[in-house]
């Protein structure tokens, strides 16, 4: 874990812009995947609708730009607030049932958000819109990839730190219990639904933050951010990286980006290999790739 962070920190010194961009991308999707994993581990919530939050974050950047605002200190907190409100509504409705229905319902509502936003002319409809430059941070330009890379790195570190604190807090431990046995936690006097809702909203906000960063990274916002396949890929990252660890999503994102880089060399239809790879890893590599790698490196993980 520390090793990876060290690598990400020194990467800008040696890599050319394209490869550095790939690493930045890994961190952004890794952040979202960690958030998805958090909701699964803490609360037992398998969401197939996190694309809605990822996209909502991205589209908030676009909406702010349309309204003439471009500074991160103003735009980003507002974007996260908007994501939180959306997550609260979807969470309240989806948590009325549990288990499999939760997966289907989150997918359904994410699709609804997709239709609403991709049907809006002022947001570029089905084509999306370019952003023409990244947001500024208190007046500082983030257009150079090096500066942006470090910003994302700091943001990721911060998010993971908050996740560690939360997972060790009493609420975090209770949520872990709920993921394990909801009925027993209820009998112990906890209010599972309320804690689960909090975990869901937190997870959504972090994913929304990743969406904000992604919009700034690509300098483009379009319906692809909201597409259900994003939700699926985030879950794949969680599974590949290992569900048990906090930073599994980050490793999963790294694996997925590497996979794409390797196989798209050979064919544009590289997903034809990804599908079977995902199936095989689910069937035979139960705990994900990350624990195996960690063991090899002799590292420890929280």
């Amino acid at each position, binding site marked *: 874990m520390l090793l990876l962070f060290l690598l990400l920190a020194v990467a800008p010194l040696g890599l050319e812009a394209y490869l550095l961009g790939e690493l930045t991308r890994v961190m952004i999707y890794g952040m979202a995947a960690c958030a998805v994993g958090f909701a699964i581990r803490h609360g037992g919530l398998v969401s197939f609708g996190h694309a809605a939050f990822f996209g909502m974050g991205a589209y908030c950047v676009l909406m702010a730009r349309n309204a003439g605002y471009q500074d991160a200190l103003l735009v980003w907190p507002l974007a996260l607030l908007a994501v939180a409100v959306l997550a609260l509504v979807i969470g309240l409705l989806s948590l009325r*049932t549990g288990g499999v229905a939760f*997966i289907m319902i989150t997918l359904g509502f994410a699709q609804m958000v997709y239709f609403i936003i991709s049907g809006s002319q002022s947001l570029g409809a089905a084509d999306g819109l370019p952003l023409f430059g990244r947001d500024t941070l208190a007046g500082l330009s983030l257009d150079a990839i090096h500066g942006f890379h470090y910003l994302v790195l700091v943001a990721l570190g911060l998010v993971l730190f908050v996740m560690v604190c939360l997972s060790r807090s009493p609420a975090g431990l209770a949520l872990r219990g709920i993921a394990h046995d909801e009925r027993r936690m209820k009998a112990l006097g906890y209010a599972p639904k309320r804690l689960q809702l909090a975990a869901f909203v937190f997870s959504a906000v972090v994913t929304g933050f990743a969406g904000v960063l992604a919009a700034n990274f690509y300098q483009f916002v379009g319906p692809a951010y909201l597409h259900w396949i994003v939700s699926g890929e985030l879950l794949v990252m969680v599974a590949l990286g290992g569900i048990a660890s906090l930073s599994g999503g980050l490793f999963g994102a790294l694996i997925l980006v590497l996979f794409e880089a390797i196989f798209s060399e050979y064919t544009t239809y590289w997903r034809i290999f990804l599908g079977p790879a995902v199936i095989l890893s689910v069937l035979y590599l139960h705990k994900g790739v990350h624990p195996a790698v960690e063991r090899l490196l002799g590292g420890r993980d929280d």
Partner: protein
Amino acid sequence: MVFFLEQLLNGLNYGLLLFLIAAGLSLVFGVMHLINLAHGSLFMVGAFVTVGVAGWSGSFWLGALVGVVATFLAGLLIERLIVRSLYARSHLDQVLATFGLILFFNELLRWLSGGTPLFSPTPDGFGGAIEFFDGFFYSRYRLAVTVASLVVAAGLWFVLAKTRAGMLVRASASDPEMVRHIGFDVRLVGAMVFAAGAALAGLAGVMSGPLVSVEVGMGEQVLIIAFVIVVVGGMGSIQGTFWASLAIGLVDTLGRAYTPVLMGGFFEPRTVASVAPSLSAVLIYVLMAAVLIARPQGLFAR
């Protein structure tokens, strides 16, 4: 009036096609407690195989036959190779592995078809429209599909409710242990239900071919709507799935037809043109939200 009748029939037609898809999903969940995301892929495979074989042989009927048989066999194969290992796994593993299947099928067909939408010809003898009464014409093919879907739905009901095989399926859903102890092969029942569900989805794909454009991604659109249906109707209730399918088909079709008309009374034409399409696309999700608020376990859940 004529417009309303036409939309009503379209809604019924759509709802019955949706039932063929959702029925398999609901049965597989009811008997094996499996969530199968790749169910929509089988719908897509059915449509593609029919178009392919019909184009090659010149006969729609041969294409339809091959399409249904191919999806049945694909269902058997998928159950044997992948799904069988997933019954005892968590819903997350089921979602991931079947998501891998979606990636595989989508990319395979994108590769084979070149990524352009295909158009299936209407079978001979079902082109044009028939005149119900003075001034009311309706597409002959759509009517045939409606009738065929009704017959299949009735057949499904008959098999499930009146035959020994159906009794075995129902028994396996409510108490698989007991069924096994009496001496039946529950795994075989599971395999047959899965393959039959696959063939039903394939049949829906076959019949939808001439009504829509046959393209990669068509499976997930119907999959998500089928999920909404299963949630609205109640998990595992085939009767609930039927009525929910009709309701969703009618709400979606009539919504798309009448939202612009109703909005036209209140808003300017420009507003209507930009808002109405996404508003009507959202209606079924609003219905799902309403059901979740009023009866979270679904309308027909036991």
